[in-house]
């Protein structure tokens, strides 16, 4: 067998429809590299997404894909993981998709703690629909809909995730792809729901949060940072403005959804369940 690299294993033949220079390209590359480094095989990985520019990602990588509805990437992803824990399940989708239309699933899946990885391509804008404010757009930013400037206070997704009880919360930046690769690997290896919010410049519609804008602000969390302290993580996560921390903000051990499905402990995965209609016949007894 010829020597393999991330590209040869995970490359898709589909033409990429993103704009040249889009921050999604380095994210895609880091993702492939992370999967490769972890020794994942395409047929053992599932990426779910919603609708948006980021959400097109499942077409641009050779793994199983479920490109569903706008805002609805998480529900199919967690269900797939529940019925087949053998799959490595990721969600790659946009900030509008994850925090806007999909906000309720974001909130409640933190509580479920299913062992999946949620990568949010956070370009602080609705890219595919041509540039309206997303939940992470800064106050005052002018768009075709927010013609007098955005008036809704932006959401800090990492802060919210930590507050609601996520067991892994990190922030990455498309402009630091090697660092990002490491974060993606850590997120995938984390047992439980892992949120990785990725700062992703949109070169076409977000003229405020550019590569330069981010570069001037992001800094990596140091080795001395204690990612297991909730209080400290809350404080760090709240940092946004002239300085923006990237790295793993918070990580703890916590029972996952699967851990709590105690009645399935010693039985095969649902996808491998053996079942005959007759197996249910005895339930008629209680109807006698």
């Amino acid at each position, binding site marked *: 067998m010829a020597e393999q690299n991330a590209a040869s294993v995970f490359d898709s033949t589909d033409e990429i429809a993103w704009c040249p220079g889009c921050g999604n390209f380095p994210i895609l590359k880091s993702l492939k590299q992370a999967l490769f480094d972890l020794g994942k095989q395409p047929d053992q990985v599932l990426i779910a997404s919603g609708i948006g520019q980021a959400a097109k990602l499942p077409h641009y990588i050779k793994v199983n894909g*479920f490109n569903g509805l706008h805002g609805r990437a998480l529900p199919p992803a967690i*269900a797939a993981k529940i019925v087949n824990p053998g799959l490595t399940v990721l969600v790659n989708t946009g900030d509008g998709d994850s925090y806007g239309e999909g906000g309720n699933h974001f909130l409640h899946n933190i509580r479920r703690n299913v062992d999946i990885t949620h990568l949010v391509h956070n370009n602080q804008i609705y890219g595919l629909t041509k540039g309206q404010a997303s939940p992470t757009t800064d106050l005052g930013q002018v768009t075709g809909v927010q013609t007098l400037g955005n008036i809704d206070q932006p959401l800090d997704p990492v802060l919210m995730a930590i507050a609601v009880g996520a067991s892994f919360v990190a922030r990455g930046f498309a402009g630091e792809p090697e660092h990002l690769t490491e974060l993606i690997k850590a997120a995938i290896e984390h047992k439980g729901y892992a949120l990785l919010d990725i700062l992703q410049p949109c070169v076409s519609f977000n003229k405020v949060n550019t590569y330069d804008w981010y570069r001037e602000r992001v800094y990596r969390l140091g080795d001395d940072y204690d990612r297991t302290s909730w209080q400290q993580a809350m404080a760090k996560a709240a940092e946004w403005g002239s300085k923006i921390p990237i790295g793993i903000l918070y990580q703890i051990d916590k029972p996952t959804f699967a851990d709590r499905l105690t009645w399935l402990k010693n039985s095969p995965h649902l996808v491998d369940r053996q079942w005959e209609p007759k197996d*249910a016949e005895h339930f008629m007894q209680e109807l006698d």
Partner: protein
Amino acid sequence: MDYNVLVGGAAGQGVDTLAKLLEQILKKNNFEIFSNKDYMSRVRGGHNFTQIRFGESPLYSQRDDLDLVIALDMTTVNNHRARLSTSGKLLGDVSLRPELDADGIWLPLKQTAKALGSPLLEGTVAAGAALKLFALQLASAEPVLESIFQAAIRASNHQALEAGFNMVESVFPTLEPVNEHRIMLNGNQAIGLGALAAGCCFYAAYPMTPSTGIMNYLAAKMAETKIVVEQAEDEIAAINMALGASYAGVRSMTGTSGGGFSLMVEALGLAGITETPLVIAEIQRPGPATGLPTRTEQGDLKFVISAAQGEFPRMVIALRNPQDAFYQTARAFNLAEQFQIPVILLGDQYVGDYYQTIPPYDFSKITIERHLSTEATKPYRRYALTESGISPRLVPGRCAGEIVLADSDEHTEFGHITESATVRNAMVRKRLQKLKLLEAEVEEPWFFGQSEPEVLLVAWGSTAGPVREAVETMRQAGISVGALVFGDVYPFPSRSLKQQAATAKHIINVEQNATGQLAALMRDETLIACTESVLKYDGRAMSGGYIVSRVKEVL
């Protein structure tokens, strides 16, 4: 020959327990039973009642006139005494005795209950009295007390039953018990059991009356069957979770009522374009919006048939009774996977909640046909255009080196987003072609009564039982009448309708709604117009008797 007992009181007074006790004892006595509940959307107070009909031969519907009313409150006395038949009796605590009462049976129920330790025993005392009135054996109640009451309160309930039993004399002539084996259940349980039999192992839903019974049934069996029943944060999550599970390779299902189904509409289209099998139970209640949450209606037929933007194949099966509900649920899973489509089981509060005795299900009739592929022509094309019209479906991760890509955009055979007009045309045709294939699967409606009748009733779903009884009554009265009751409603089976309608002078749609939705569907599908309508939309299920009187009115 059958008897009709009504048990009524305020929510929280124990109407449910009393009704359950009576039903179970009557079941142990091997009678045929039909029991339906009328309850309000509140937990305490108001007025709830259950009508328990039992007899010697199969019962398909409630009956309007009553043989016995067991009243736990004055509202029950006032609301229902007029419905008593000439030989009917009113049973209640002495405190309820109306001023001008001739033949009520007024017993010290409350006092006895209190003496036995709890006012909650009142219902059991009344049940004991009822047993005696119908000349049943006290012993027949033994196993029921065992199964219904926890050990701590079993003895006192036993005493209460006996005390009531000894308070009265038998009044009603005894009935002949049935010889065959019967099970008793409601439609929601039947759906749950059908799903279990069919190998469903993932159920995601959000609680909504009157569909929650399905979730309760399955949730109670989780540990034993090794399945997952997950309460979703909302109905949108529920259906998208069910789709994810199905995509990942298991049989999965969701259930809700009309309001929740509204929220599932977008994902119904997702099932359509991604060709992901899915079974959805929609248990109707009266709308619009919140409407009458605990009551019944057939108001969502046109809605579920045309729900979601765009055009894609689906199948809609209306559930006609608990017998039907079980087999149709199992069938729905096979159809969903064979054609890779969403299948909607359309029930309503009536068929979901009424209890009926029926012959045990024949599990050997249930098959699990997954229609999954295990090998693929490489590279695998999820949406391959095939001669059969159906693309091979792989389970992700179960075919080495091949990946499965599902897509909600218009897509190529590989599942990649496309903008090609040619591919679009091919994919639209591929999907809609399944409607043609489905036509071979579609089952003709049930037919009751006289063939080629003068009066043809057309109905669908849960009114099957009442319509059947109505037809029998009318035939006995010499009317040339027959009825078609549709189970499969979409794609629409039109053969029998065309046949029977050809000679009918009157074609009357009998529907539990206000606009006549089946009639509209018939016009669209067959150009056959109903001549008259019997419609009811007050949230209370029509009985056979109601149909007879309304049909006579419109004729």
